């Protein structure tokens, strides 16, 4: 392997964030290897979402660095991160509720703020239509996001990311609450994305989905990375299970 191929598309080093007296993220190191699905697991309040917020510039870290393709980013904004090919979803979805599903996806791939967009409008419409088709939302394209069913809303949040063509996806509990059929479609979608070389990091509480989907698990608790490795190894660790299921001694 060339050194280039071994450099993870996204990595963090020594990332830390305090909220008042609460250390939400403490000195976390993390590599997201190219084309793999990394699951970020840990109990409520472990700092998973905060880690995403730090990576995407939604929050400024107290210490530490984010590295894209091995290069330190320095202080950044969500906008700059997005333009570097990192897309994220939100635990509470944050759809554009009063726009149609189709407009939601289109708006996600029209970054220019001026009265027009550079580039090929037809290609953008095609990309949006493809993302809707891949997520099973073609029939719902004209419906307001606020009117969609629960699973459709989850898929719409994924469609927005799919359409961007981002190479790194950070997904915050994208599968929570999905029915079994939707879950199977979701797993297939993510597998296909990883197969295309997209680097995925997802936060997920459901260990069945994690087992099914993840190539690697990173275990976070109280802002610290406690373990990382193959799913079987992590999930078999009784100490981690105790923390995860809340019956710590």
């Amino acid at each position, binding site marked *: 392997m060339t050194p280039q191929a071994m450099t993870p598309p996204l990595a963090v080093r020594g990332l830390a964030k305090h909220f008042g007296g609460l250390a939400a993220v403490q000195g976390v190191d993390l590599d997201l290897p190219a084309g793999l699905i990394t699951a970020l697991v840990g109990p409520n309040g472990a700092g998973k979402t905060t880690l995403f917020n730090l990576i*995407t510039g*939604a929050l400024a870290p107290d210490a530490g660095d984010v590295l894209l393709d091995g290069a330190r980013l320095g202080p950044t*904004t*969500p*906008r700059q991160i*997005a*333009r570097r090919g990192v*897309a*994220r979803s*939100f635990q509470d979805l*944050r*759809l*554009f*509720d*009063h*726009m149609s599903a189709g*407009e*939601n996806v*289109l*708006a*996600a*791939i*029209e*970054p*220019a*703020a*001026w*009265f*027009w*967009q550079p580039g090929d409008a037809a290609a953008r419409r095609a990309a949006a239509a493809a993302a809707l088709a891949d997520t099973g939302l073609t029939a719902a394209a004209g419906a*307001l996001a*606020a*009117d969609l069913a629960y699973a459709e809303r989850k898929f719409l949040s994924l469609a*927005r990311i799919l359409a*961007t063509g981002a190479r790194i996806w950070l997904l915050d509990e994208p599968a929570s609450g999905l029915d079994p059929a939707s879950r199977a479609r979701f797993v297939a979608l993510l597998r296909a994305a990883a197969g295309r070389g997209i680097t995925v990091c997802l936060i997920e509480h459901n260990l069945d989905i994690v087992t099914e989907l993840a190539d690697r698990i990173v275990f976070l608790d109280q802002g610290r990375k406690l373990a990382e490795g193959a799913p079987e190894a992590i999930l078999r660790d009784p100490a981690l299970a105790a923390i995860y299921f809340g019956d710590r001694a």
Partner: protein
Amino acid sequence: MTAYLLNLAQLAAIFGLLAASLNVLVGYGGIFSVAHAVFFGFGAYAGAQIALNVAPDVLLVSAAGGLVAGVLSLALALPALRVRGEYFVVASLGLQMVATTAFTEAEPVTGGLGGLVGIPPPQLLGLSLASPWAFLAVCLAALFGGLAVMRLLMRGSFGRSLMALRDSESAAEAFGKNVALLKTLAVALGCAIAGVAGGLFALQMAFVNVESFTLDQSVLVLAMVIVGGAGTLAGPLVGTLLLLLLPAALSFLPGIPPTEIGAVQQAIYGLAMTLLMIFRPAGLAGRAQGKR
């Protein structure tokens, strides 16, 4: 009677344009301003000065009104856009109060409390528009021209970006949108069109003074947008017709002593608006079952 109706129709067209311009901020951008009359005023004073000192040409006057209001909106609204959401309402309230005072005090430019009087009858490229029918045609052309521009922009990527940040600013940013620039452009566009409406207003009234550009006026225009349906193309027009024509219609109500008309109007207004927001929160032209 015809003269009265023509006058009303001209005003309706001008206020329709004004309400539609505020809709860009409020309805599409989610930027709640209670200072829109300020920019209407900038346009009216600028237009009046041009009409008095250069020529009362509608194109010249409305261009000057739009330019002055658009440019000043950048200077004044930019600092305020740094604050978020509900704080912007308060910031715009402050702006409205400062501007009302400034309009009153800046006598050399605004004529102070007395205003600017004796604005000559409007022209278009040397043709007289003194006929109320001709000026009505100009007002309608401005209204529908303005609506066409807004429709084009709001149905395009600019409108989508604006609505996206209205619905979730953080998600819009996460998809690479320049939220500050989008808001700035929305404010400049909305205020420039308000300035055009102001220029026409100066020509229509033949005089301008501060009373037309107070907080009351800003609130009335905001009510037009919300009652009609914020974020819809037709909404502001519907709201304008209702809120402008309702008082006119009420003045024909029999059995109300003339001294009480004002109070009765206020009461009916207030009641109608409260009921509307309860039963149709998205406005008359908005979706029937308002979500949220």
